[in-house]
Every structure is written in structure tokens, then in C-alpha cells.
């Protein structure tokens, strides 16, 4: 029954995502998100509550391993509902590999009559990511053969392949299926990596491989996807245990996440993939509070999608609502954490 609810919720999320489809691509289900915004936001909130509750359940009652490929497989066919970043990746790849232009010099908007501009938000920006990412995008770009839908699914397929690769890495390092589930079934990972197709998993996968095997090439490759892992460079030189390396990496990335990211733009939910991936390699018993914090953080960050979903714009009360939706669950976690500590001391 639990598995049925889980699979049904994922299928529902996958279908629901098509409600957010760009009107330039299709309008079949678009009325769900654009005409019934409050209903869409409530449905998404309910889905989040169900998926996070079942995630906690699965961490206590280990499910069958097939649930991971099933979840990934279902969301592979979803629409990148909550972001336009995937379309930015697609258009940047097109600038580089179809038009033969340097995407760091030529913006998509400078390409005359480019049809992808209809659904590319960052059309007036040069390539936002490093050359390793641009090189990787050649694969889905080629597989997509110029068809926007085929390219979109090729990008998502590459994300799913990397997600499986990282799951295998967790298993190889920890030999603990709970660690794999901690990462693989985290709803934020499923939504942001597989549904929305963000590229953070490539950066963090390479960085953690670099830290585990002291491989400087992997770390440099990670930097040239996204620069956030630059902060991990000192860890490559330090001679400390793997467990300590992970904790240090977690807090360094948390520093970038909580301090630099909001200064630069804002606290984007998908950046939490860095923290979830790092935490997934830790020993469960030694770091249960950190893992608990990461889970609450994941939930709190996914709630940040709700104000835009409800209102249809980012401004107005949006920023304060997003802050409250992030801070309140985390504050409640801290209250619970302090209460539990105090209770333990009293008894």
C-alpha cells in the first residue's frame, strides 16, 4: 500500500508537472498552473508532504531497491516544471554546437531567428557554467538532433544516468543501503535533479570523488562545471579522515549555500543537492542530527516554490514568503533539537 501511494504520487507529480508547460511548447495542460494557481500550489504542497513523509518512512523501513529506478524512471518523463534552467542549458548548447559560436562571447539573443528564444529565460546572458559543463551538454544536444523535446529528455536522461552513478558511488563508499536511500529518494533530489534537470549533481559528484580518491583532476573538472566547489580545495591537501573531510565539506558548502548564494542571487532549492549528496556519504549513527537537519532543509527549500506557484510572480510578498517558508521549518527543527538535548540532560 505504501509503495502504491509512493508510486502514484510520483506519477501524479510527473503528470502535474505538465501543467507548468511553456505555452510556446504546448497548451494542453497549461490551464492547471496558469488558471488555477492556488489549486496547483495546494496540490504541490500535498505532494511534497506525501513524498517527504514516505521518504522518512523509507529511511526507517528499507524499501526494495527497485523503488529507486522506478522513481527516477517516472520522473524522467516529467516536465521541468519549476525552472527554466534546463532550457537555458539546451539553448547554450545550441549556441555552441549548432551555431558554432563561443557561448561565453555570444548570447542566445544575438542569434538571429533562434526559435529556442521563445522559452529561454537567460537569453540575454553569456554561458553561466564552466567549460566542462558545456562539453558535457554536447551529448544530449547531439542525441536530441535539434528536436526540443528529444533534447530535453536527453538532458534528463543524462541526469538520471549521473544520479544512478552517484547512487552506486554512495553504495561503494558506505556499503549501506540507507545512505543510498537518503540521497536517492530525497524528494528535493528527485524534483530538482530528475524532474527539473539541474546540473548540480555533476559538480558535486566530481567533487566528492575528488575528495574520496584525492584526485585533483576530478576537483578541477568540478570547478569547471560550477565554481561552488572551489571552497573544497583546502580539503584536498589536508590529511584528515574521510568522515572529517565529509563534515568539513558539508559546512564549507553550507557556507557557500547560506552566505554566498543569497548575496549573489537567492537561496535556490537545487543548491541543497550539494549538501544532501555530501551528507549521504556520512555515517548515519555519528551524524544523525546533521542528516536530520539536511532532511528538514530539503523540505523547507522545496516549499520555496509555493509563493510563485500561487501568485505567478516572484516580487511583492514573494521574497518574504519564501524566507518564512524556509526559516519556519528549520526553526522548528532547532527547537525540537534543543528540547531533545535538554530532555536528555534532565533525565
Amino acid at each position, binding site marked *: 500500500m505504501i509503495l502504491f501511494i509512493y508510486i502514484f504520487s510520483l506519477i501524479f507529480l510527473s503528470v502535474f508537472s505538465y501543467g507548468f508547460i511553456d505555452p510556446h511548447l504546448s497548451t494542453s495542460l497549461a490551464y492547471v498552473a496558469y488558471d488555477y494557481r492556488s489549486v496547483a500550489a495546494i496540490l504541490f504542497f500535498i505532494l511534497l508532504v506525501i513524498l517527504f513523509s514516505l521518504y522518512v518512512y523509507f529511511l526507517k523501513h528499507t524499501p526494495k531497491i527497485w523503488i529507486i529506478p522506478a522513481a527516477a524512471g517516472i520522473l524522467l518523463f516529467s516536465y521541468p516544471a519549476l525552472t527554466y534552467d534546463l532550457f537555458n542549458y539546451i539553448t547554450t548548447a545550441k549556441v555552441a554546437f549548432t*551555431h*558554432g*559560436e*563561443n557561448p*561565453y*562571447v*555570444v548570447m542566445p539573443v*544575438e*542569434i538571429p531567428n533562434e526559435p529556442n528564444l521563445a522559452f529561454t529565460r537567460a537569453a540575454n546572458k553569456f554561458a553561466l557554467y564552466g567549460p566542462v559543463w558545456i562539453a558535457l551538454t554536447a551529448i544530449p544536444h547531439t542525441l536530441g538532433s535539434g528536436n526540443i523535446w528529444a533534447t530535453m529528455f536527453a538532458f534528463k536522461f543524462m541526469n538520471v544516468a549521473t544520479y544512478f552513478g552517484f547512487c552506486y558511488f554512495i553504495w561503494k563508499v558506505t556499503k549501506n543501503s540507507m545512505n543510498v536511500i537518503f540521497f536517492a529518494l530525497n524528494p528535493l533530489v528527485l524534483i530538482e535533479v530528475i524532474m527539473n534537470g539541474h546540473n548540480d549533481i555533476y559538480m558535486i559528484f566530481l567533487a566528492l570523488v575528488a575528495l574520496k580518491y584525492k584526485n585533483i583532476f576530478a576537483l578541477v573538472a568540478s570547478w569547471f562545471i560550477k565554481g561552488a566547489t572551489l571552497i573544497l580545495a583546502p580539503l584536498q591537501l589536508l590529511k584528515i579522515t574521510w568522515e572529517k573531510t565529509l563534515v568539513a565539506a558539508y559546512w564549507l558548502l553550507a557556507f557557500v549555500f547560506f552566505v554566498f548564494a543569497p548575496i549573489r542571487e537567492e537561496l535556490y532549492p537545487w543548491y541543497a543537492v550539494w549538501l544532501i549528496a555530501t551528507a549521504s556519504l556520512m555515517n548515519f549513527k555519528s551524524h544523525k542530527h546533521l542528516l536530520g537537519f539536511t532532511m528538514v532543509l530539503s523540505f523547507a527549500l522545496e516549499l520555496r516554490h509555493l509563493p510563485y506557484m500561487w501568485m505567478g510572480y516572484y516580487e511583492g510578498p514573494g521574497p518574504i514568503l519564501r524566507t518564512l517558508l524556509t526559516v519556519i521549518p528549520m526553526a522548528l527543527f532547532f527547537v525540537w533539537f534543543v528540547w531533545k538535548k535538554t530532555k536528555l540532560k534532565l533525565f
Partner: protein
Amino acid sequence: MKKLLLLISFLALASSVRAEYVLPYPSFMPGNKLYRVTRIVDKLKNYWYFGSIAQAKYHLGLSDKYLVEAKTLFEYKQYLLAVDALGRSDDEFRKVPRNPAAAEKHIEVLTQLLSIVPDAFTWTPEKSEATRLPLKDLLEASIRLRQL
């Protein structure tokens, strides 16, 4: 009537806020230790600016840069160096697809220079032969190139 007035004032304002083509500030000048380095960097940048749009940007950027260099040198009466910079600006401009805004700005600068430089100048270095520089002819040729 009010709407008509509003439309007229909007059109009048819209035409007055047209973005102007802006030339860069002068970079390192001949004689500076870093001047040779910047010239090498300019050449290396050619590999970075691959693609037809990027190439147009590259050549226009260099044409702008060398024109500003030439203007500064003309103003300081360093005519031999100025003519060399102007020649480079022309060479780069030939490789740029038609760009009326850039051409107009270049012509504006070149026309200003016509009024401050002599028609011709004989550059006589201490230890080598003198060179006659037909400055007016050269500037006019540069203007004609941009009028095409």
C-alpha cells in the same frame, strides 16, 4: 486629443533616448611596457572568439580599440604611431559585417581628427630616413572605408 498629445510626446521621447554607440577608453599606448603584451593578447583572443558572430565582435572590438589608440596618438602629435594604429583599425573594420552605428561613430571621430591634424607631416627620426605622412588623405580614406 490628450491621447494624441501623449502619443506625440512618447514618440518624441522615444527618439531622444536612442542608445549611442560607445567607443572604449584608450588602452595601453605604445611606449608602455604592457603595450606589446596587449597586442599579443589581442591576437590570442582571435582563438577565443570563434564563430561568425563572435568574429564580428572581435574585429569590431579591435577596430574600435585601435581607432581610439589612433585618436589619442593624433592628439599627442605622435603621427607615425597614429597612422599605424589607424591602419590596423581600418584592417579590422574591413573584416566586420556592415554596422552603420559603429561606422557612424568612427566617421564622427575621424572627422574631428581631420580638423586638428595637418594635411601632411614629415616624420624625421634621429637615425633613420624621414617618412612623409599624408595625414588628411589617410583620414579621408578611412572615412570612405566606413561609408561603404
